[in-house]
């Protein structure tokens, strides 16, 4: 009895202490944990900054030389392994002031001797945008209609109607290649007027900054300069380089066209049977939709009735184009911009200078 009482006391005290500790524990963060990549990421969006010959400008030894007063570079956004779905992006840049540099070290932090960031202007002409390797994975949704009354008869329908009106059925996931999206003649790099002509059909609509912009307010002084004139980048001017706007709806006409041309014979009003034969829809999904809509038992359908149902229901793609499930389930492609950088050299003391440009990628 005494032992039981002791246990009760201990238990009660532990519970009480737990009650006090619970709120504190509830807000505790887990620690940083470490692991190793066993394989490459399964879906990635990669930012790459290169010179116009394709050398990585963030690698040791690579140089973006502005001694001539201007230069160009290339920013690339590469979606791979269909890891992204219906997600756009923004690439932008900020710039520090440029300080005197003798080839091995910074020589001055004097504000009268530097090149201010606002003397640099960056533009990203639309004509120099480029993309290739576009593909998308997506799942179509069909709207099927047809009168099944004579097929099902009164045995299954009773006095009810067998009319199906625009009932939706989720199809089988499809992968669209660049040729299917942009046209069979556009399988390589798309740029200039060709790109402009197909932009609305692409899963990502890209745009540059043709008007250009100067880096009005500087970013933080270069880390190795030792200068503290601009201690942080809090008010740095961000200049757009390239934006990619998700445009899943642009693929509807592409997918509709692919479907119309894939069914046999070619038609814009395919039957469910034609869609099933071309592997756009699972016939069982169609029959399940019919049974649920008409409230009949699918197990009672004969093979003849099933085939007749599939041959009778149609999707008029002209008036009822497919819709897309969850917009997209994956997208791949390489999007490039070639911004030009120009320095206003007025008032600059001849000599070597160095600054830092930060190129930022934000996935929207």
């Amino acid at each position, binding site marked *: 009895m005494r032992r039981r009482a*002791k246990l009760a006391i201990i238990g009660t005290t532990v519970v009480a202490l737990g009650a006090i500790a619970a*709120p504190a524990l509830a807000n505790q*963060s887990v620690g940083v944990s470490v692991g190793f990549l*066993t394989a490459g990421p*399964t879906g990635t969006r990669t930012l790459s900054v290169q010179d116009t010959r394709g050398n990585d400008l963030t690698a040791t030894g690579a140089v973006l030389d502005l001694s001539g007063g201007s230069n160009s570079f290339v920013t690339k956004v590469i979606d791979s392994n269909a890891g992204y779905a219906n997600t756009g992006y923004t690439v*932008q840049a900020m710039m520090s002031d440029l300080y005197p540099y003798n080839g091995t070290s910074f020589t001055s932090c004097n504000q009268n001797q530097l090149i201010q960031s606002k003397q640099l202007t960056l533009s990203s002409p639309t004509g120099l945008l480029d993309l290739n390797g576009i593909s998308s994975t997506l799942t179509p949704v069909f709207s099927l209609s047809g009168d099944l009354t004579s097929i099902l008869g009164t045995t299954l329908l009773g006095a009810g109607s067998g009319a199906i009106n625009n009932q939706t059925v989720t199809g089988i996931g499809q992968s669209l290649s660049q040729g299917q999206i942009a046209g069979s003649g556009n399988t390589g790099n798309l740029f200039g007027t060709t790109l402009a002509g197909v932009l609305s059909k692409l899963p990502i609509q890209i745009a540059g900054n043709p008007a250009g912009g100067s880096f009005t307010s500087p970013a933080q002084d270069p880390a190795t300069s030792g200068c503290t004139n601009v201690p942080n980048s*809090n008010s740095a001017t961000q200049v757009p380089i390239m934006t990619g706007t998700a445009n899943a709806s642009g693929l509807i006409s592409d997918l509709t066209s692919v479907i119309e041309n894939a069914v046999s014979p070619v038609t814009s009003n395919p039957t469910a049977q034609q869609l099933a034969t071309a592997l756009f829809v699972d016939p069982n999904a169609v029959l399940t939709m019919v049974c649920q809509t008409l409230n009949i038992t699918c197990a009672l359908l004969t093979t003849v009735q099933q085939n007749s149902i599939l041959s009778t229901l149609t999707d008029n793609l002209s008036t009822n184009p497919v819709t897309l499930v969850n917009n997209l389930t994956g997208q791949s492609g390489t999007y490039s911009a070639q911004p030009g950088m120009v320095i206003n050299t007025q008032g600059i003391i001849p000599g070597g200078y160095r600054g830092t440009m*930060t190129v930022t990628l934000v996935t929207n």
Partner: protein
Amino acid sequence: MRRGLAGVFVGMLTLAGALLMSAPAGAVQTTTWGVTPAPTSQGQRTSLAHPADGSTVHDVLIVYNRTAKPITVHLYVLGTSYANGVYQFSPPKTGLAADTTIGTNSVKLGPYQEVRVPVTIHMPRGVKAQTLAGIGAEASAINDGSLSIMQQLVVLVKANPTNHFAPPPITKDLFPWAFIAIGLITAAGALVELERRKNRSVRSGSRLRPPLPAIGPS
């Protein structure tokens, strides 16, 4: 038997390791390193998006090294807004950024290493439009030529409007817990006192009892 248990343990460890080390998806990366929100049961994500329901969210960001060389990635929270085709960043003094904290500001990554960094977000309550913060990541710039090019990757933190609100966080209101704790401690004290009185009554009872007759050969 022991060997069998060891085998099971090793198997479980391997499985746990495989789950832990599975490659991140939906990642943004440079040619050398990358960052991504940790996948959830609903799959990969490209941002840390949660309903603005007043709750405290514990999330995870994965930072990884794509190369065989060590690399250090710096992490920081950014006040973030979008206007005129660009994201504007500011110190994390107000808004969602002020309510976002990350487990560390610097991650040293060995070859092909990945690190999971905890992110805690105190979500706002009752916002009518999506609000943003950012978690910026950058590695040191390579210093060559007139311009050092630095790449910055930003993972957005999003507070999305919702009609469903979490109950007020208990961490901010200790009173109910304090009352429960006081009640339980009082009950424990009462049990102690009861036990003490029982002991005393047993001891005093034995003193009043008449002595037992001596047993044995007389």
